[in-house]
C-alpha cells in the first residue's frame, strides 16, 4: 500500500514539474498590429475587352470588380460583368444570348512580409470564386431532315432562360505600378456546377463562364485603383474626457 502511494505521488510530482517547465517554454504570440481594413481596389478587366474585339462579335464580355484588402493577407472580391454571344454554327444553327453575371470569392496573398518590414504592394494571389448567371437565350434555324422517308422541318427555340452556377480556381499577380494604381493578371480554371438535362436545348455560351463545355480556362488582365480608406480607432484625449464630464 505504501509502495503504491509512493509511486502515485512521485508520478503526480513529476507531471506537475513537467507542466511547469513546459509553461515556462511557451512563448506568448506577438501581437499583430496590421489593421484589418487596408483599402478597396476597384478594377477593370482589359483582357475581356480585347478578346471581345478579336472575336468579331461572336462573343463579348466586359467586367469589373471590387476587392477589399484585409490585413494584407485576405482579399475578398466581388466581380460583376455583362457578356453575350451571337454564334452561327457550321450547320447554320444560330445561338444568341446576353446577360449579367457575378462572382464572389476570396484571394489569399501568398507572399508573407518579413518581420519588421513594410507590407509589400506586389501580390501573388491564389483564390477561389463562385460565379452565377441568369440569362435568356435563343436557338434558331435547327433543321431536321429525314433522309430515308423524306421531309424536312425547321425548329426555333426562342426566349429560353437558364441559370448557371460555377466555381473558379484563380492564381495571379498584382503590382502597384504608380501610387494606388495596380495592374495584374489572373489565370482561372472554371468548372461548371450546373448540369444540362440531356436532350434539352442547352446554351452554347454562358455569360462569365464562356462556352458551355463543363470546364474552361480564363484569363484576366486588370487595371485597378486602390481607394485608401483607413479605419483608425479614435482614442479620446484627456481634454475630451474632461469636457464630457
Amino acid at each position, binding site marked *: 500500500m505504501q509502495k503504491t502511494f509512493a509511486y502515485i505521488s512521485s508520478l503526480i510530482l513529476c507531471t506537475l514539474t513537467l507542466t511547469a517547465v513546459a509553461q515556462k517554454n511557451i512563448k506568448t504570440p506577438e501581437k499583430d498590429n496590421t489593421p484589418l481594413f487596408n483599402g478597396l481596389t476597384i478594377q477593370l478587366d482589359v483582357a475581356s475587352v480585347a478578346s471581345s474585339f478579336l472575336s468579331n462579335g461572336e462573343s463579348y464580355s466586359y467586367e469589373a470588380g471590387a476587392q477589399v484588402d484585409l490585413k494584407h493577407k485576405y482579399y475578398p472580391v466581388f466581380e460583376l460583368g455583362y457578356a453575350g454571344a451571337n454564334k452561327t454554327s457550321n450547320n447554320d444553327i444560330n*445561338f444568341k444570348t446576353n446577360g449579367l453575371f457575378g462572382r464572389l470569392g476570396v484571394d489569399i496573398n501568398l507572399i508573407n512580409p518579413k518581420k519588421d518590414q513594410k507590407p509589400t504592394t506586389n501580390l501573388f494571389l491564389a483564390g477561389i470564386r463562385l460565379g452565377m448567371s441568369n440569362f435568356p437565350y435563343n436557338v434558331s434555324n435547327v433543321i431536321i431532315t429525314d433522309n430515308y422517308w423524306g421531309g424536312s422541318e425547321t425548329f426555333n427555340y426562342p426566349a429560353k432562360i437558364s441559370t448557371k452556377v460555377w466555381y473558379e480556381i484563380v492564381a495571379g499577380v498584382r503590382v502597384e505600378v504608380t501610387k494606388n494604381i495596380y495592374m495584374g493578371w489572373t489565370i482561372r480554371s472554371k468548372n461548371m456546377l450546373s448540369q444540362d438535362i440531356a436532350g434539352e436545348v442547352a446554351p452554347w455560351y454562358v455569360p462569365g463562364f464562356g462556352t458551355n463545355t463543363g470546364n474552361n480556362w480564363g484569363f484576366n488582365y486588370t487595371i485597378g485603383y486602390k481607394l485608401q480608406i483607413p479605419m483608425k480607432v479614435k482614442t479620446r484625449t484627456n481634454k475630451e474626457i474632461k469636457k464630457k464630464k
Partner: protein
Amino acid sequence: MKKINFIFWSISFLLCTSCMVDEQCRQNRFVAMKIDFFHVVANKTKDTIKTTTLSLDSVSARGLKFDNQSSKFIYIDSVLSYKFPSTNVDLPLNKFSTISKYEVKFNTTIDTLTILHTNSDYYLSLECGCLKVHSIDTVLTTNHFIDSVKITTHTVNNTNAENIRLYK
C-alpha cells in the same frame, strides 16, 4: 537559348490550340430501330425452349409510305440491304409520321412490319443540331417468316441498343 525558344513556342502553341473551340460534331447522329433475329427451338421431350441467334444469308427492307393523293401505301425508292450474314437490321423510323411500315425480305420470304410510334426532339449541341428520337408503341407483323416479335427497348435513339427481338 535555342532550347528556351523551342520550349516557349511549344507551350504557346499548346496553349493556343487547347483554347480553340472544336466545331466538329463528333456524336453519332444515326437513329434507327434495331431488330435482332432469334431462332426458338423447342425440346418436347425435356419440355424446354432454347433461343439462339439467327443468322440469315440475305435480308433487305423497303419502306412503304402512305400517299394521300392515291390513298395507298407506295414504295420508298431506296432499298436497305444488309451485309451477309445478317443477325440484325437497323430500320430508320419516319421522323414526321407516327407510322412506319416496312416490307422486309428474309432470304426469299417477305413479311410486313408496321411500327406505331411517337416522335420527339432531342437536342445534341450547336455543332450537332437536333435529332428525332422515337418511342415504340406497337409492332404489327405478317407471319410468313416471322413467328413473333417482342419489344425490348421502347426508346429508339442513337445508342444502337436492341429495340425488337424477332423470333422465327
